């Protein structure tokens, strides 16, 4: 491939040292993601999926190994440069939603724009809220929402600054399959616009949207394969029903 990979991980290891216990979470992860890919990361609970996502999403640093983003070594970047990338290029949907308490849906979704240099107006906030079907709740406080609604706010927030990559850590975990499918439809269309999507999921129906599936067990990549086009086609049929 002539183009540099968007993300290249070389021998990434991650361990957490708490007082005396050292927990090893990721072992020698080697991975390349190209621009425009739609990847699903799957694996049992505790296998290190979220940790890998945080590292790729510039939220955490690996203990060892190198991370190249667009060909740049990210260990050479300053904190502020990383903050800039998180704001301008990345949309992160947290597994735990991470909404601001006592703050309206609208203000939660608008939060990334506060720190953005992009000239994105407030109409983008409404658009993002509409796209997750929460417009009627936009003035509610985040703590007054149901789990599924919170999840949708988190998704809207990840979209608002028009990122190039979206990291979605179990974005449909709290949704019924109908709303889950709606969310997958959004991600799918973003991918069709050329955005890179990295998704963590347990559910098969969501994974089926991806064109590549990476399986992690105990912090190691055990499988990494492209999905046949058939599946994709079948899914598109499903959605248009």
């Amino acid at each position: 491939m002539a183009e540099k990979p968007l993300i290249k991980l070389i021998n990434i290891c991650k361990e957490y040292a708490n007082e005396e216990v050292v927990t090893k979470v990721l072992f020698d992860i080697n991975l390349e993601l190209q621009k425009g890919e739609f990847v699903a990361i799957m694996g049992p609970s505790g296998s290190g999926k979220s940790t890998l996502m945080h590292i790729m999403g510039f939220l955490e640093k690996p203990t060892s190994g190198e991370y190249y983003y667009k060909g740049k070594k990210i260990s050479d970047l300053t904190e502020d440069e990383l903050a800039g990338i998180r704001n301008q290029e990345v949309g992160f949907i947290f597994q735990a939603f991470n909404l601001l308490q006592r703050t309206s849906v609208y203000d939660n979704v608008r939060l990334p724009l506060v720190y953005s240099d992009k000239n994105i107006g407030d109409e983008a906030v409404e658009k993002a809220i509409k796209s997750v079907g929460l417009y009627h709740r936009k003035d509610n406080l985040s703590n007054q929402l149901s789990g599924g609604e919170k999840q949708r706010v988190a998704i809207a927030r990840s979209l608002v600054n028009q990122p190039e990559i979206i990291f979605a850590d179990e974005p449909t975990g709290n949704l019924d399959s109908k709303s889950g499918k709606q969310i997958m439809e959004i991600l799918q269309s973003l991918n069709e616009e050329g955005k890179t999507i990295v998704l963590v999921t347990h559910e098969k129906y969501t994974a089926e949207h991806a064109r590549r599936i990476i399986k992690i067990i105990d912090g190691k990549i055990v499988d990494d394969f492209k999905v046949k086009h058939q599946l994709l086609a079948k899914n598109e049929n499903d959605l248009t029903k």
Partner: protein
Amino acid sequence: MFKTFKKNFNLASEALWRHKLRAVLTVLGVTVGIAVVIVVLSAGQAIKDFITGQMTVFGTDWIEVEIKVPSTAHTSIENVGGLAQGISITTLKISDAEEIKKHPNIRDYYAGNVAQEVASYKEKNKITMLFGVSASFIDIDPGEIMQGRFYTEAEEKGLAKVAVLGSGIKETLFGDEDPINKSIRIGRQNFRVVGVMAEKGSAGFFSMDDVIFLPNVTMQKLILGIDHLTFIFAQPYDNSLARQTAEDITLIMRESHDITDPTKDDFIVMSSQEALELLDTVTGVITILLFAIALISLLVGGIGIMNVMYVSVSERTFEIGLRKALGAKYSDILNQFLTEAIIITIWGGVLGIALGVSLSFLISYVAINYYGFNWQFYLSLTYIALAAGMSIAAGLIAGLYPARQAASLDPMVALRKE
């Protein structure tokens, strides 16, 4: 520049609004701190003026000779207490005053005693301070006659039973009635009123307007039954030489009292100059003391702000983590928290200044109208600026540390603190 300020201002206001109670309590802390500083500083100024007024009611160019218990310091408890307990020093005589008057720098003097008696006119009675002074008092003292005349030297020598009323006591005994040539009773004797003094303004606790002036000799012979004096007020020609003149007078006094050991002095000489200098040291000490109190209250206020800022940072670790995760830079977080501290201190400053000025006014109002003290209300811009400046500085310094801590948190570490 303005845009970032506006952004920070909005962020900080939103955050404060989300934590209204805490914000209000912090503002309150700053308010009280600043109010205390203003009250303390204005009270200090008022106390200074109060004391100075007390001193200058007798004018600013005099040399006083006063009796003193030997072997004690003039201002000591032993002296004041000794005199109060009736250790009577009977050695100060009018002949001493005549000796002092021979000094080339002394123009004139008045001498006298004080006493307390019930003064009455018709049905009205009042325990009154009697000031038995020489007729020359009216030429030397800044006080002036408003009605009638002061008594004369001839009247004094002739033991005339005449009295001059202070403006306050005239009001008390006579109201609107003309007192001149009326007879008032002082103790068991009748005195004829010959004059009323002009109002002098109350100088502190002791008002010269509530005094009755009697000829010194009359008071000595007819009321006290003594022939000695309590004080001599001498007036120098050249006040700038007062210090030297006071030393000369000390020597004159020692010679006429046959004293060789200065510790056995039964008198004390003090010039108005020295008194004012002494006053300066006293007010200086008061100022330093008040300043220390003000500083401590500011310090306490500052620690309060720091505490609240610190709690607010640790309580909001998650929020900080989230903001950083969504792209907030170090400076964004730092500025947000600093702006919060500034908003709080500015509100506290405005309210504190309002509260402090109102309290100072109230204190002065109560002191003047209910206690009759000459307690001036001061609205000093310097003090207000000082209090506001210090509070903003305290707020910034107090806010800086937690703000920096917040800004350098790792996003994921902070997010896990939920």
